[in-house]
């Protein structure tokens, strides 16, 4: 056994440094986003940067606490933490405080906690614990189903709040399953479903008027075309064994996807969400509503130019032109004040963090630590991809924070816990078998 003294020497300081750098950049830009001449004290807790500073302090304490807890705690209590989080998610959906139509928050006095943020690391731990247990192989159907349940259960509960953004984050765990041996076929299937999904959205509002007062909607037209294609393929490849069975199964599955898109759009998503997706797909020019945020955010980023307007010199992100500028749209402030230079440096920092985390995950001797490590990198990557993607018009406007950068106590703490559990596991990698 190693001696307790060198616990800090065994920590991966590259990751910690990247973490501190990102948190610092985040705070600087929150300051810039809400900056005005009258409130200049950085400790003013009536202002967001003052509060964020408090939360950063608390996050550091939290990180140290995590490092001091015995590493065995995280694997032993993986399921217990997960089950606790599931109950909290049920509780918040029932008794939470409603803010802007979603019950995602518990409020105590002036504090507000968002359980869906903390469910992420608990799910990562539970999944790692399950996949690393004896005789569990991702190739088995049983394993796939149970992993699926572990991932989807919290996602569904979050959807009840409803918080679509946080729900989608759970899709990131497919990266973990892929690393652990999920066949590439599933990826292909997932991608095909996604393509079919987008395609259905594109033709959804089409209508084809037939004689006898009969109208065929976009979805049915697509099913109709697929049916013709299926018949042609069956005839052309009739020599191949089982061809018609395979074609039939594929046809039924695709039709199912197409029909469920209509269902999801008409019954599950809220009007503003379907609108955002329609705008992203270019189906709707709505510069005043959903498209407006993205347009404003791109104007802010674009106006930064090559080298930016300089710190605290931004004009677009001041005066509330960009919505949610210190939370979901914080990247606008960075783009405007630091220009192409600054924003590409930030992206490089994130990529460096991801690559470093993959390297750490791969050097683990225990599969529990490796799987958890991949869980961490997947979650962080998903947030990064969707958040920055939306501010530059490459992803739909889904309100999820940029890790370590966005304003908000719950999200900062949850990302800190997520990352530091892994740093702890890594520092003890030689002890874990």
């Amino acid at each position, binding site marked *: 056994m190693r001696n307790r003294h060198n616990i800090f020497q065994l920590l991966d300081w590259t990751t910690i440094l990247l973490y501190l750098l990102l948190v610092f950049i985040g705070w600087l830009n929150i300051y810039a986003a809400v900056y*005005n001449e*009258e409130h200049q004290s950085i400790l003013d807790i009536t202002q967001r940067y003052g509060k964020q500073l408090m939360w950063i302090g608390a996050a550091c304490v939290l990180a140290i606490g995590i490092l001091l807890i015995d590493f065995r705690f995280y694997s032993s209590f993986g399921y217990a933490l997960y089950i606790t989080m599931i109950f909290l998610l049920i509780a918040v959906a029932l008794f939470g405080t409603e803010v802007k139509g979603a019950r995602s928050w518990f409020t105590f006095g002036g504090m507000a906690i968002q359980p869906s943020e903390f469910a992420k690391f608990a799910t990562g731990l539970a999944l790692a614990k399950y996949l690393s247990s004896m005789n569990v192989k991702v190739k088995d159907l049983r394993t796939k189903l149970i992993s699926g349940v572990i991932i989807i259960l919290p996602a569904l509960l979050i959807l009840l709040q409803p918080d679509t953004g946080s729900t989608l984050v759970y899709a990131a765990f497919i990266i973990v399953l892929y690393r652990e041996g999920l066949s590439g076929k599933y990826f292909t299937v997932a991608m095909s479903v996604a393509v079919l999904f987008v395609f259905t959205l594109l033709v959804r509002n089409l209508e084809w008027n037939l004689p006898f007062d009969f109208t065929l909607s976009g979805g049915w037209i697509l099913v109709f075309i697929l049916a013709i294609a299926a018949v042609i393929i069956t005839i052309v490849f009739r020599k191949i064994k089982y061809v018609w069975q395979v074609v039939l199964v594929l046809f039924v599955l695709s039709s199912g996807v197409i029909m469920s898109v209509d269902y999801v759009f008409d019954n599950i998503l809220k009007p503003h969400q379907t609108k955002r997706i329609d705008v992203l797909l270019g189906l709707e020019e709505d510069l005043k509503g959903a498209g407006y945020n993205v347009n404003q955010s*791109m104007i802010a*980023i*674009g*106006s930064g*130019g*090559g080298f930016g307007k300089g710190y605290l010199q931004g*004009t*677009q992100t001041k005066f509330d032109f960009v919505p949610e500028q210190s939370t979901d749209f914080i990247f606008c402030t960075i783009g405007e004040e630091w220009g192409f230079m600054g924003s590409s440096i930030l992206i490089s920092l994130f990529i460096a963090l991801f690559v470093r985390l993959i390297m750490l995950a791969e050097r683990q001797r225990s599969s529990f630590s490796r799987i958890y490590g991949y869980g961490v990198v997947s979650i962080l990557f998903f947030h990064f991809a969707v958040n920055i993607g939306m501010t530059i018009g490459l992803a739909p406007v889904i309100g999820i924070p940029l890790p370590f950068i966005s304003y908000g106590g719950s999200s900062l703490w949850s990302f800190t816990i997520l990352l530091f559990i892994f740093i702890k596991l890594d520092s003890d990698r030689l002890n874990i078998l």
Partner: protein
Amino acid sequence: MNNRKYIIGFSMAFLGLIFIVRLFYIQVYTDKYKLDSRNNVLRYITDYPARGLVYDRKGRLLVYNQAAYDLMIIPKQTLPMDTDEFLNLISLPKKDFIERYNKARKYSSRKPTVLVSDLSAEDYGKLQEVLFKFPGYYTQPKTLRKYPLKSASHLLGYISEVDQQIIDQQPYYKMGDHIGRSGIEKQYEEVIRGRRGRRIILVDVFNREKGKFEDGAYDTLAVSGKDIYLSIDAQLQQYGEQLMKNKKGAIVAIEPKTGEILAIVSKPDYDPNMLVGRIRTKNFERLKADTLKPLFNRALMASYPPGSTFKLINALVGLQEKVLTPDTKYTCYSGYNSGRFHMGCHSHASPINLEFSIQTSCNSYYSNVFRSIIDKYPTAEQGFNVWKNYVNSFGLGSKLNIDLPGELGGFVPSQSYYDRYYQKGKWGSLTVVSLAIGQGELGITPLQMANISAIIANRGYYYTPHLEKSGFHQNIQKNETGIDTANFNLVVSAMEKVVENGTGRAARKEGIAICGKTGTVENPHGEDHSTFLAFAPKDDPKIAISVYVENGVWGARWAAPIAGLMIEKYLRDSISDPALEERMINGNLINPDEE
């Protein structure tokens, strides 16, 4: 398996590269997103729509908007100037000006602050001509609600600025917006407020306007609020308020054929203009602290025992249940006796029939009727539930769903209520006999009372009472009591006698067939309450009314004459007995000594 780490790592790095390429396109390559390359910024201008007006049933204006102006200051843009000339124009002492200027600076040097609110039109006119000499100051138009009749405060309600809670719950509202807080202003908020518009203009660093952003492609037009027409008769409403001066209580008048409310008076009240503009907060606090509760809308929210007026319902239920006929006679020796139980009554001839029982309002008669209804069935519970269903069908015990916020449903006790109170099986018709004469646990609002009158006027049904006439109210229903018209006709003729030569003589008006019923409600805290319900004319009812005067002693003393005057005013628009009118108006039941 081992190459998967590379696939994952490279995919992530690849996405990073795509982002960087995209950023290069947006920030460096294209000019499409550089609208502020010349340092232009966008300025958002909100256009506030005018709030809708409110009219009465004859098109008389009840609520309108008056233009007013706030003088705004942006401290950062101010320059040295001739302060004295400026202050003369707005008649503001220099000391106050310095104080307010410093306060504005402390709040924000770049955001506008109100320096003087509600400028008079005169000051505004003078100021507007010379304002160009004073950079950093500008005027901002706004509107104030005005209530020209100074009446119907509870009914019309008031508006005030939204608070953080409303902003969180309803995303439409922004800081500084107004919202209806009570009455019609609240009920029809979405119709009456309209929708605000937004324009975006380009301004340069010197705050000079450079025209519309993208030719107005992002602008939305303000939609003005819609006007509301009420069924209220403003003249009758004001008359009712005048009659109820210095009294506590309520008057509700309904047009029976439609359910339209003609007047809805609650006293004490206040001048609605008190809750407008700068004086609002101060006055509101004062009204809230007032022990006479002037903010409390008694017509909808006060639940009173109905007293003897409730005997009408018991008569109707008895007739329908066939335990009572017009010829049924009961004795009354100054009250009702059963074993050791005694309920008092005033002295009158005995025995009596149905018609006379209503005319003289005999307690004994109705104790007998009520007990015969309950005891018709095998158990008291069954009988009671049959009785309660009839009572509920008169719109009692639940809200009538008038289109005003805050309505109470009143209270009709249920079987389980008595089961809890007396234990199951331990109570019978005698235990709850106070219901026979409208005492006991019953609670009825003045609105429900007027509605009973409308039901009798219609001989058996009512429409949801409502105020709004221009089609925004979608939920007006016809409700039936299930009691035969013939039974109503018997009660109606008796009610006519009540006014002709019974307890309600004080409401009599020559040439108008008024049907009514008095009520006196025992009040353990002071003088009894006086109540009266009535409708007229008997054969083609145009108005059904309830009057409730707290501490009015007898129904006949205050409530009946006030109801009579209201009916005469509405049907004839003139008053035949000015002496009576004067006595009613001058009656002071709040501070009787001041008379």
